[in-house]
């Protein structure tokens, strides 16, 4: 069951106490992402999909179960620099330039920034020429690309993304999906994407994990069979829509 290089959650339970009542956020969540695969988690608001990721990142404690990231407990994996992360909002430090924002994880891990590598990341996400711009001077899509570059700068074996394009419009989002696939393919990392966009999940992932709320649980794991690299025309392919419809059915069905 345990994958030494991927992500594995085994029987994870989590409850939140607040405002006089107890919310069961996750019940017995078991999930395994083999090395080098792309997994998307999809589900309605409040189904605990973000909590799954925050637990895998070590940002939340868990009540029961076990989590391994590249064979290590989450916080150790984080400290070893195994993981990379991008959040729903770019969450950039507004007072730092693009380059200095991308260097944040290196600073936290106590690594010396390699200027050439940072520059390569900037170019990888297509922000050449904006190295010294402040986040306030960038568009929403550009900020999100900075967040992706920041997530990749540590050469992560495991890449976590929590609705990284949630704040973008549909057109920009598709462009970013294509770019993300390209970048992911180049790095060969294990990716876990949390999203509420069905087409995004199907376009990017090898497997789509569908969750339901109250209590948060996994109801189905759907394999996506398309070859890579996937191209934008796939978005209008009937086969693509068939998979999307299936995901939607599971999502909305009982």
């Amino acid at each position: 069951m345990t994958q030494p290089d991927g992500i594995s959650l085994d029987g994870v339970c989590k409850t939140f106490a607040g405002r006089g009542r107890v919310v069961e956020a996750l019940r017995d969540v078991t999930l395994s992402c083999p090395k080098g695969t792309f997994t998307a988690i999809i589900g309605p608001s409040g189904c605990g999909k973000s909590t799954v990721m925050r637990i895998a990142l070590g940002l939340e404690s868990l009540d029961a179960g076990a989590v391994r990231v590249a064979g290590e407990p989450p916080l150790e994996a984080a400290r070893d620099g195994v993981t990379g992360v991008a959040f729903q909002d770019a969450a950039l430090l507004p007072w730092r330039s693009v380059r200095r924002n991308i260097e944040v994880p290196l600073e936290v891990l106590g690594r010396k920034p390699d200027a050439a590598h940072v520059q390569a990341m900037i170019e990888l996400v297509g922000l050449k020429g904006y190295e010294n711009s402040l986040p306030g001077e960038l568009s929403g899509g550009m900020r999100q690309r900075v967040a992706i570059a920041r997530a990749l700068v540590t050469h992560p074996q495991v890449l976590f993304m929590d609705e990284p394009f949630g704040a973008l419009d549909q057109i920009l989002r598709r462009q970013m999906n294509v770019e993300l696939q390209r970048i992911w393919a180049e790095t060969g990392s294990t990716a876990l994407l949390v999203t509420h966009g069905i087409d995004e999940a199907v376009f990017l992932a090898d497997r789509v994990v569908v969750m339901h709320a109250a209590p948060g649980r996994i109801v189905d794991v759907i394999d996506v069979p398309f070859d890579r690299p996937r191209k934008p025309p796939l978005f209008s392919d009937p086969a693509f829509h068939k998979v999307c419809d299936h995901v939607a059915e599971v999502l909305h069905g009982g």
Partner: protein
Amino acid sequence: MAAERRFAGLRNTLILLLLWEIIGQLGLVAGGALPPPSDILIRLWQDRGDYPGHILATLQASVAGFVIGNVVAVAAGVLFALSPPMLRLFRGINIAAFALPPIAIAPILALTLSGMAPRVTLAALGVYFVTMTATVIGIAQADSRAEDVVRAYGGSRWKVLRLVQFRGAVPSILAGLRVAAPNAVLGAILAEFGGGGRWGLGTYLLGSLGRGEPDRLWGIGLIATLIAGLSYAGFALLSRRLLGATKAVTLNAAVPTGKDDGGPLWARIGMALATVALPFVLWWALIKLSGAPAMIAKTPGDVFTYLFLAPSAETAQAKLLAALAQTLPITFIGMVAGLAFAFALAILSKLSPRFISGFMPVALITQTMPLVALTPLLVLILGRGTSLTLWITISVTFFPAFVTLAQGLALVPRSAEDLPRAYGASRWTELRMVTIPASLPYLFAATRLTVPRALLGVMIAEWLATGRGLGNLLNQSRGYLDYGMIWSVAAVSVILSVVFYQ
């Protein structure tokens, strides 16, 4: 539009100055005790030889107090932001630091400390609360998503603080420093009144009080105002230059994780008791540390003995209660009047921003002008009765209340105001439906702010003009070397402010 408004402000100020000049020249107010601006300027020029030494001394004390107070405040703010239990534990001390009436503290500082120390301490005290609060708020409001990024890479608490929170708190801290800077100057001047020594604007003012020369008193007041105003403007400029890059790009919608409040009942009661006890422990410790002789420096125990156990306790209690009976009602009335005035101003600022922009310079002057210089003039205009006390109290309370209310009003979303207007509502309807309800929560905050200031205003009036109540008792006890009473009055006025604040 902005240029037009600035021009209107300038014009109003000029009109006011001109009016002042005419009134002064004709001796219309108080038989000529209000000198015209031209006389004040001439006098300033004549006295120019005296000023450098005094200004330097005041600046020295204010700068030292400003630096020390802010270092302590930022350190405390960081500690409190990192540790909510510490924040709860120090709540008593923080409120006391905020509510301390400087007029009651100044003589005590002068008694227990020597040299520049009382001035520096009072300046530092004036700074502490503002900056500490700004730091806590700044850190607490730091972008929690950015914090997550650092934590997701295994960043420690310290890394989160260093990389995200502290830098994120800078604008808030700078805004705090802006308010704190004039406080430091005024604190230093107030301490100079009681501190002795030859130099300092406060000393100069006191030395000049007996001269019967209002033009010089006003001159000193203007210089003090200028220094306080410049320090405010300096930090305003600094924060404007730094602020540009620091605003979060998108609104942070993440709700901070609910604090695990309390625990078992006994722990909560223990915490509450410790919060109340800590200021007294600190008081006791400071006395012991200062090494001041027991006759002068009273510990909480000494004050308790003085008020309840000593043979003279009954007389002391009677005096104190009589003074309180005179001071409290007028404090309350003054506070209500000050708040009402501030509320009216805040509403007016919404209706007629132009009027307010002309009024603001005058309001600012009343805030930084040492009351000791103004009071003799006010006495001539208003006599020594209740109306004088009321006016002084209103003048010290309305400004912070107004600022709080105006800030609250500025936060009302545009769309909320546009809604009634879209249905053709008049200015008044809009005011009634949106502006006033929106500002009510801030009225509550403003009330808390004004309580200690109202008490301060009343005590100053009593001390300098009416010869009643706590202010007079404090002054008289100083003259009679009745140290027990000095400490009692100080303790009672602080406790009162804290109780009202709660």
